[in-house]
């Protein structure tokens, strides 16, 4: 685990990211994966 991301910070970081992306802790990884895929596809389309 990287410096400065202890357990408490991980909770805060995850909450902030989940809120921003409109999901919860369980949906975070799939959502980011989907964003990454969409970005790659759109770049190809452009």
């Amino acid at each position, binding site marked *: *685990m*990287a410096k400065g991301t202890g357990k408490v910070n991980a909770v805060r970081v995850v909450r902030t*990211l989940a809120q921003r992306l409109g999901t919860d*802790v369980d949906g975070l990884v799939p959502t*980011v994966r989907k964003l990454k895929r969409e*970005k790659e596809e*759109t770049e190809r389309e452009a």
Partner: protein
Amino acid sequence: MDKSALIKELQKDWKKYWKVELFEKEGFARRQCEKCKGFFWTLDASRANCGENPCADYSFIGVRRKDWDYYETWKQVERFFIKNGHTSVPRYPVICRWRPDLYFNIASIINFQRRTPKGITFALPHNPLIVPQVCLRFTDLPNIGVTGRHHSAFVMLGQHAIPEGNGYWKDEAIRLDWEVLTNVLGIKPDALTFKEDAWAGGGAFGYSLEYHANGLELGNTVFTEFLETNGVRERLTRPVVDMGAGFDRWVWYLNGTLTSYDSAFGPVLEKMKKGIEYDGDLFARYSRISGALNFEDVLDAKRAKSDIASALRVSVDNLNKGIGPLQAVYTIADHAKALLFALVDGGLPSNVGGGYNLRVLLRRAHGLIEEYGLDYTLLDVMDWHARSLKAMHPELVVDERVRDIIETDLKKFADTKAKVRKRVTALVASKQKITDETLVTLYDSEGVTPELIEAEARKEGIDVTIPADFYARVTEKHMEEKAAGKKRTFSTESLAPTKQLCYTRTLEHDAVVADVQGEWIVLDTTAFYPEGGGQMYDTGTIGGVRVTDVQKDNGIVFHKVADAKALSRGDRVRCKVDEPRRMQLTQHHDATHIINGCARAMFGTHAWQHGALKDVDHARIDVTHYKPLTEKELGELEERANKIVREGRRITKSVHTTEDAEAKYGFGIYQGGVPWGDIRIVNIENHDIEACGGTHSDNTSTVGKIIITGTERVQDGIVRVHFVAGRAAEDYESKCAGVLEELGELLNVRSAEVPDAIEKLAEDLKDARKKAEQAMGHRAKRAAEGMTFVEIRDVHVLVAHVAGDARALQKMSGELSREDTVIFLIGETAEDAPVFASAGELAARDYHVGRILKELFATVGGKGGGTPVLGQGTIKREKIEEAVEWLKERVK
């Protein structure tokens, strides 16, 4: 209950019900009104009418009887009643937390009514008592500002007594009312009439004497003596004197002003009237006949106005110009006062429940301020009210919280209006008739005031009539509680209530199977907590058989078991509750109360628990609040909650009667709802006190830790806070660390860099979308260059099959479209064939593309439709050629 039938029935024995000692002693005569035919009592031998408007005119206007303002009038009246043995009780909140069937306090007697399984009961904290109860009512909205006498917020002077101890019954009640009216207010005895009437509500009912002077109703003393349950009438064991007098009317009567608003809002109106132009003489003449107005009865307000105009010998336009600004000012003043009381007492404007009614007031008042170009704001008027009422209601303050609530809601209103203008323009353009239903639907679903629709429609030369009872219609729907969800019911007859051990430390015990109903088992004694109050049920085993659900019905606890056949009635069984699960549910329940207390401390009186769920792996609480919680607020809420946990505050539980619990702890105990009967209080030392039937520990430290996992806005005015506590919080921490690591791997960065990497990803995606859009535009332009239109009767028509999805078609159409073009494009994707159609303004006169597409879909299959100028849908890929040919034929 039919009131007139009740009066008729009781009048068969009128001496018994309405003849009081005072009437005999003073020599009152009983007469029948020549106009309404109602019976009344009077000292004036020549009186032919009952004295109630419209049978009698408002003859008090223009006569100033006392030099008392609002507060002085109250002090005089209060002094009289205290001298006569009454306790003066401070007003109760206008938000009716103690009655689940009411959002607002609508009458002084509501303070003392409690719903029990047997019906309504009355409990007076003092006997006798008076209370200056501020009430909110919304069914009279169309009349407010117009009739001179209707208010949405008014003080009901309540005089209540029970005929026992120091209390009294009808002879003394009417003697006291007579004395206060004649000796304190100085009303001439022969100007007063007492009309025989009756009142019913909530099952309890009684006969009453309603009193009037110079055309104005001043009060109604009800002798609530009976209770009707399922058609069976019985005498209440504790009948109650329920005198409710419109205190604002008393002040009006004494001051003789043109309207009751002038006497009730005095100093506020002085400020508000500055800068408006109105015809004072016309209004003076109008006010004498406005007493007869009541838009509940006169559905066509326009016609009523026209009748008034002709009675006053002016045109409707001149009447509007002459008195309209003044009526607007009265309306704004009234609404601002109601909002002030509601917000200070914890109400919130929203689109649900009672909040809806408050939003109606807010938008209506603000709309009028804009319409008449007034140079003050709604908040200014609320602030003036707070200052003017300070002596009587020092609790009224327009603080930062109140300002923020109003400003936030006005911003929502501005956003809605912008959206709605487009909607109204489209409605007008489509030539659809704007019906009453359209007005109600637009108001209900989007908060669009009918005045706004009327104004927009007028610009388009269309006349829209707002039904006079419009606001009554939309607010009535929101006044009453929603029907409770259907709960599972069991057969409980012949079963004794289960002895419950869930509030003790017992988790393992012996019991006897009292009944078996399908998969459900009843025990004589149980430690299993049945689902309730948002807390999930316990699990465990009964006689070694797994318990999968526990519910309670009518005092009997039902346990759903995995194998009911293994158990029989009369079996003696060993019961074991799953301890870790119970512990977790208890931690979540403690945490719910902790967070709720913190939310109230942070946000204010309007923050109220709207609902909650305490499950094993997660929990949530819904709190009434007017805007979404920020990350900073979430952090603060979490910190405050954990501080309470760390401080190890005591959690005590005790059982009280309703009266005792309310007197000791106030109405804040009803956060989780209003229980029937005795109340179990869960008290977190100096933090949160609630009526609650859930399981709780003895100290906040047992919660361990609270983590707020997120928040969302579940509906307007309600925010949901998701959280975990105890063991679930520990698990959540580990999960978060794992997720962060996984994200780091996915994005190829260190955990600490994940937020920045996600932000960059989002930015890159945005850029890529922009570039893709531009590329599509270029392709569409190139494709469009090669297309040729066919000219048919001055319209240029294009039907084409092109490559691309729906977005590409839209883009292409945008490149090609002109005033005189009609374009049908059929695209192609891997799944289907999108269809897009557009018509320019001139071409739309000959071609309704939405309808043409409907015909196309009906012919070749597919779905979609549209307006005269825009249409879209999809068909199957194999139907493309057929569709192109059909369209070419159709447009010829």
